[in-house]
């Protein structure tokens, strides 16, 4: 079982969350100016690293806020978590 610390609600089981994917992708700031290649990269391409992975989880059965999580996907260990606008480092 994965336990994620929600910055608003404290430590909660993964059951309360819905996974929302890679948190490293940034939507093109000016959609009209973005090229097809920019959109392809944003929509489809992923680093998919084997190790620490920065991702969003939606606390859908809790406060309904999005939570940013740094998690080692080879062990499922949560290394850090915080608000979506926070910069996370392992061991915080």
């Amino acid at each position, binding site marked *: *079982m*994965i336990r994620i610390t929600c910055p608003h609600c404290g430590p909660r*089981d*993964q*059951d309360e969350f*819905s*996974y929302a*994917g*890679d948190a490293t992708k940034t939507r093109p700031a000016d959609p009209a100016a973005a090229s*097809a*290649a920019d959109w*392809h*990269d944003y*929509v*489809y*391409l*992923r*680093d*998919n*690293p*084997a190790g620490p*992975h920065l*991702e969003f989880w939606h606390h859908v059965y809790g406060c309904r806020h999005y939570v940013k999580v740094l*998690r080692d*996907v*080879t*062990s*499922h260990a949560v290394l850090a978590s915080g608000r979506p606008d926070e910069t996370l480092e392992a061991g915080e």
Partner: protein
Amino acid sequence: MAEYSVFSLIREGLTGHKGWIRAWRDPEPKASYDVIVIGGGGHGLATAYYLARNHGITNVAVVEKGWIGGGNVGRNTTIVRSNYMLDGNAHFYEHSLKLWEGLSRDLNYNVMFSQRGVLNLAHSDGQMDAYARRGNMMRLNGIDAELLDRDGVRRLYPHLDYSKDARWPIYGGLLQPRGGTARHDAVAWGFARGADRRGVDILQNCEVIGFERDGDRITGVKTTRGTIGCGRVGMAVAGNTSRVAAMLGWKLPIESHVLQAFVTEPLKPLIDGVVTYGAGHFYISQSDKGGLVLGGDIDFHNSYAQRGNLPVVENVMANGLAMMPNIGRVRILRSWGGIMDMSMDGSPIISKTPFDNLYLNAGWCYGGFKATPGSGYAFAHTIANDAPHETNRAMGLDRFESGHLLDEGGKGPTPKLH
């Protein structure tokens, strides 16, 4: 030793089974090969086999980081089917199913392919309509499909929950009679033996750790058993595709997720074929040894750990009990996880790449096992001819740029949903 047959079995039976020899060699790597296939799973071994069988390319190595068949080909629920709607998928999987039908004979190796039927249950009028549509599209593509009503399902599977208080009553189902199961280890071993007998070197404990390049051309593959020169390279490492691609600084439309599977203690015959639950994600069949083999959803988060977590275990069991309450006291013997290449549209990639002589076989999501012969066939063709086979023309990597997606479920670029 040549062929496996009833005669060789009788001869060996009478002489103490001392004449059998190993089914494939354990060679040292050569300095270079015409083709290096990365990944000694079902797809990689099938690719090597068909390179030799169909294209006469025998100076081939399959490099495998562990032992052959130790990854997803040995971690699936062994289901074979071709019940797809989209043309780009349907013809590919149907071709694969036709290869399955002749595979044991072709390989001279019993893969125990058993066409016991795959039944998808429906639990509402809307779902019956959707299955009628799917079945009609399959039949238009020349694939077998039969829409069953409730009584038709009950005749085949009397042990499901037909009671008044079933949470999701069974309305009927869509049956593909030619679908079924196969013995997954034998598939890996049969392709390995077939490839080896045609001259392919199978190099185990040989992990790829990098590439030698000349611009966009791969000149060598660095492995834990030394650097091996190559004419062409095929990557068939589903689960670890992004890791190997990262060695080339190459990003792909793939996320890795863990899918769990389970087997119970052996029982007397209970389920003839493969049954899937329509009100959740659950599939079950019974192995020849009697164990119920079952599975459900992926764990819904990126993972490279070959094990999953309890919420999905609970969900799979809840689905199973809703469909077949009578298995409630059967004990689970084992559970395990495999790493799925979840692609961005839910369909696989068998394709040329931005690199001159590198070819990609990836993105199999939940469904790689059934595709094993068709995938090897098409990938071998793609490598040998530097162009796709007619069955994998729609499976190019460039479809994500051009917008020609193969999204069977219409779910969009959210890998966990495919």
